[in-house]
């Protein structure tokens, strides 16, 4: 459901792609010259590759690896490579929403830190590929929950009670929602307006008890 951006999703965050596009043909030309093969062919290849608007290529934002959900001081995210000290912007999805800074402390399996890992919840929440991290936070209560943005490319800000952040740097803000299902919390990130079209990202926190759903 993520927007594909000219196939650069395959390069980590897309940041190195312009460099690769520019230098790869030069390296290729050098190698070919050594082998005394006519330079015309490599010049043609160079021209073909550099016709792409390299400078205009937008930075990618890999939602699956940069967005997770949190409850209290615990972040659940499909990324097992977050280093200690990595910054996370927490969107607390109350009314109104608020934004709190946080940092990654360490990976954890503690149900004391992560209520999502309580015995009756872990089998559903701790699925393969999902990592749990203890967070260093202030002003985030044990029952607070919401969405964490790892190293946000644009600082989220509150407008009309909703947090907004232009994560794709495309001029459109992403917005953040959470709502109750019958036995869990569904989190989602949308572009421009909540609950319209498909979400950019969604997550689910299984709580293991019954509630009145609030999701639209």
């Amino acid at each position, binding site marked *: 459901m993520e927007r594909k951006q000219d196939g650069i999703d395959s390069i980590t965050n897309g940041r190195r792609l312009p460099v690769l596009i520019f230098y790869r043909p030069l390296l290729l030309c050098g190698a070919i010259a050594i082998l005394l093969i006519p330079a015309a062919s490599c010049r043609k290849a160079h021209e073909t590759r550099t016709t792409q608007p390299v400078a205009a290529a937008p930075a990618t934002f890999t939602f699956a690896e940069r967005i997770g959900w949190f*409850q209290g001081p615990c972040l659940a995210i499909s990324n097992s490579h977050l280093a200690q000290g990595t910054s996370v912007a927490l969107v607390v*999805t*109350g*009314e109104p929403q608020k934004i709190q800074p946080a940092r990654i402390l360490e990976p954890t399996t503690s149900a004391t830190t992560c*209520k*999502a890992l*309580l015995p*009756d*919840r872990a*089998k*559903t929440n701790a*699925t393969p590929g999902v990592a749990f991290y203890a967070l260093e936070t202030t002003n985030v209560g*044990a*029952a*607070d*929950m919401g969405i964490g943005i790892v190293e946000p490319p644009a600082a989220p800000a509150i407008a009309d009670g909703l947090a907004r952040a232009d994560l794709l740097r495309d001029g459109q803000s992403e917005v953040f929602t*959470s*709502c*109750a*299902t*019958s*036995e*869990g*919390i*569904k989190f989602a990130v949308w572009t421009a307006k909540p609950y319209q079209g498909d979400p950019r990202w969604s997550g*689910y*926190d*299984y*709580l*293991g*008890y*019954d*509630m*009145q*759903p*609030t*999701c639209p």
Partner: protein
Amino acid sequence: MTWANAHATASDSVDDLADPFKSNAKDFIKALEDAGATVTITETRRSAKRAYLFHWCWLIGLGKAKASEATDMTGVEIEWDHGDDDKSKAGAQEMIDGFGLAVPPNSTNAPALSSNHIAGNAIDINITWKDTIKIKKKDGTEVSVTFMDDVNQNTTLHSVGESYGLKKLTTDKPHWSVDGR
């Protein structure tokens, strides 16, 4: 909380479900496993006592009810009213935090006192397999079912479960019940 975690826990045994849902769930799980799927049971019957504790601590701790309004429940000895609203609220808030109860935005409804899980008519299971398997429906016919990461979208699997009397709730990935709620 210590008492609740020792004496009012949820079961993960199919045998604790109510018939005929129990036998239907067993048949469905057997069909899945015979087809090569891995089935992990998360919860079956939930404790009414635990639900009672969740319900009232949530209401009192969030200031949505006074401790004096809490009803009694046979078999649960708890004093909600500490003789002081702030102390009662603080005690209940401690339970909310300890149980890890959620406080979703817009939610004015406390954790439920009754449900299909409490009645023994719901089961939470995680079902995984690779690629495509053939699962037998209740009538013996085989259906090819391809694995999907989002089980809520896997309508073919839902139809197999429904043949056994287990209906999928499509908002909560592990949840199957007698009526889809």
